C-alpha cells in the first residue's frame, strides 16, 4: 500500500523525517528497555536471576564438583530493617537442592513492606542458578517490631560452566511501603 504523500517535495521529505523522529522516540521508550531486558536475560549480564524454577527433570547430583555459594545482604538507602543471612556461605554440589534462611526484623514503630532484589555474580553463572523457592518472589510485610525468617531454596545447575567455583548472591532490600497498598498485604494476614 502506498500512503498518499503531499505533492510538494519539501513537505513530503519533512513528513518522512518527522516520522523518523517519532519512530526513534518510540524506539527509545518502548523497544530499547524490553530489548535490554531480553539481552540481559540471555547473557545474565545485569545479574538478575530468573523466576521460580520448576524442576522438570530430576537433576543428578554431581558430587565431583563443589561450588561455594556466598550470601550478602544490603539495605537500600535508609531502609531501617535488620536484614542478615543466617548462613554466610555454603558449599554445594551441582544438582543438589539446598535451603538457607535470611532473617529480617522491623525495629521501627510502623508497619512496613519490603521487597528484596537479587543480584548474582559472576554473570555467566546467572542462568545456572535456579531458585525453587525464594522470598524475593513476593513482598515481605512486617508489622512494627516483628521478625521473620525468609527461606530460599536453590539448585545449582549441573551444566554450570567449569570455571565457576564461587557464586555470590546479593540481596538488596528496598522499602516499598508506599508503592504497595499497605492495607491489602498487612490486613490480609
Amino acid at each position: 500500500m502506498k500512503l498518499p504523500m503531499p505533492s510538494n517535495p519539501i513537505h513530503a521529505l519533512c513528513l518522512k523525517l518527522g516520522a523518523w523522529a517519532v519512530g526513534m522516540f518510540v524506539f527509545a521508550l518502548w523497544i530499547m528497555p524490553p530489548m535490554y531486558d531480553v539481552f540481559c536475560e540471555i547473557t545474565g549480564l545485569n545479574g538478575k536471576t530468573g523466576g521460580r524454577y520448576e524442576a522438570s527433570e530430576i537433576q543428578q547430583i554431581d558430587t565431583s564438583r563443589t561450588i561455594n555459594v556466598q550470601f550478602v545482604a544490603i539495605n537500600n538507602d535508609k531502609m531501617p530493617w535488620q536484614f542478615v543471612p543466617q548462613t554466610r556461605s555454603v558449599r554445594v554440589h551441582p544438582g543438589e537442592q539446598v535451603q538457607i534462611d535470611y532473617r529480617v526484623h522491623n525495629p521501627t514503630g510502623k508497619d512496613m513492606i519490603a521487597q528484596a532484589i537479587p543480584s548474582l555474580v559472576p554473570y555467566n553463572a546467572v542462568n545456572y542458578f535456579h531458585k525453587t523457592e525464594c522470598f524475593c518472589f513476593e513482598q515481605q510485610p512486617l508489622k512494627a517490631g516483628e521478625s521473620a525468617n525468609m527461606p530460599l531454596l536453590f539448585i545449582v545447575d549441573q551444566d554450570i560452566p567449569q570455571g565457576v567455583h564461587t557464586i555470590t548472591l546479593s540481596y538488596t532490600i528496598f522499602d516499598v511501603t508506599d508503592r504497595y497498598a499497605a492495607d491489602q498485604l498487612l490486613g490480609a494476614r
Partner: protein
Amino acid sequence: MAHGPAKGISRWLFTTNHKDIGSMYLWFSFAMFLVGGLFALVVRAELFEPGMQIVDPNFFNQMTTMHGLIMVFGAIMPAFVGLANWMLPMMIGAPDMALPRMNNWSFWILPFAFFMLLSTLFMEGGGPNFGWTFYAPLSTTFAPPSVTFFIFSVHIMGISSIMGAINIIATILNMRAPGMTLMKMPLFVWTWLITAYLLIAVMPVLAGVVTMMLMDIHFGTSFFDAAGGGDPVLFQHIFWFFGHPEVYIMILPAFGIVSAIIPTFARKPLFGYSSMVYATASIAFLSFIVWAHHMFTVGMPIAGELFFMYATMLIAVPTGVKVFNWVATMFKGAMTFETPMLFAIGFVVLFTIGGLSGLMLAIAPADFQYHDTYFVVAHFHYVLVPGALFSIIAAVYYWLPKWSGRMYSEILGKTHFWVAFVGLNLTFFPMHFAGLAGMPRRIPDYHMMFANWNMISSVGAFLFAGAQLLFLYIIVTTIIKGRKATDRVWENSEGLEWTVPSPAPYHTFSTPPEVK
C-alpha cells in the same frame, strides 16, 4: 508585497527571514555562553584552593550541572544552528530556509526552555544537581523537586533541535541552486547535513529517556528502579546511545567551518574534498556503535569491553584523515594569519590534543583509572572549547564582515585569540595531571596534593572569561563603527556567500545564481 524587515519588536517576534533568525540564534547562544561561563567561574572560584570557601556542596553540584547543560544545549548547539541559518541558504544559493515559519518557532521556544531551566535555581530544593549526564537514580529517586522542570525544558530543547534539523535537511536537499550538485556543496553544508540526520536520530532518544525519568518519578513505573524490577544501568545505555552521537553533533559542523576557513587563508583549495565528506559520514556512522565506552566500569564482559574499545579507536582513522587534509591544505600555501585563521589553526592543534587524550580513554583497561577523574574533564574540554567553541568564534570573525558589512579590528581580534589560547591551556592542561594523579570530577573540595594544579586552572579560567568579554566588545564595536568591508572581504574567499554585497541584503538569491 513588503520586502524590507518589519519595524520594531515585531520584526524579531514574527520574522521568517533566515538571517534574522540566524542572528537571534547567535545572540541567544552568546548570552547562554556568558551564563554558562559564569557558572564555570563559580566552580573554579570554589576550587581555587582546597577546603570549602564560597558555596555549599549542593550549590556547587548545581553549578557543575547547569554549566554543562547550558553550554551543551544553550551555547554550542544553538550557535551552530544560528550559523546554519545564516550561511546555508547563502552557500547553496537558496532564497531562504525551506520552512521559514517552523524556523521561527524552533528558535522562539528555546528562550522559554532555558528560562524554565534557569528558574529551577531559585526553587525550593534548588536546580538540577546530578551532573549534566543526569544518571538515574540520582536524577529520579534522589533528585530535587525541580527535576520535573528540567525534564520539560529538555523536551522543549529536543523539539527545537529536531525541527531545526528537519528544516536544514529539507533546505539542503530541495533548495540548492541549479548546478549545485551534492559533491559541489561547501563542506559546512555537508557536515551540517550529516549532523542534522544525527539530531533526528538521537534527540528523540534523549526525549525518551527523560520521559522514562518523568514516569519513574510521577507515575510509578520502574524503568530505572531496581525495587520495581528496573535497572539503573539501562539509563546509562540509553543516555549514551544519545550522548555519543551528541558529541559529534557538537563537532561535525566545526569541521565544516574549519574546512572553509583554512583554504581561504592558505590560498589553496581544500585538500581531499571527497575524503572529507566520506570521513564525516564514517564518523557519524561509528558514533552509533561506541556508546558503551562511557561506561567501561559498569561491569561489562570482556567481549563488550573489547568491541567498544576497538570501535572507539576506529574513529581515530576518519578523524586523522581530516586533520591530515587540513595540514595538507596549509602545506606550501601562501598563508596569512588573520584572526579566523588563528582560531582555525588553534582548532587543528588543540582539537588533536583532545582527540589523543580521547584515544587514551578508549583503552578499556586504562580507562578504569581515568574514569570519572579530571582527566576526562580535561579531555572533553579540549575537544569542546578549542574544538567546537573556537570554530564558532572563527566563524563569527570570518563571516561577521558579510553579516554586518563592517570589519572587526584585527589587533583586537588577535589579542582575543592569544588571551583565549593562553587562558584555555592554563585552565585545561593542568587538569590532565590532576586527573592522572587521581582527582575525581564533580567535587567541591579536594586533597592538598592537587592544590597547585587547581590554582593554575582557576587563574586560567578567569583569564579565558576576560577574553570572552573582549569578544563581546569586539562584536558590538564592529557592528556599530567598524570600517566598511568589501563584498569579497577576504583576498581568496570562495563560495556563493561572497558574491552578494556586504552587508548581505535582507533577501538574497531570490533568483537562483548560476553554479558552474
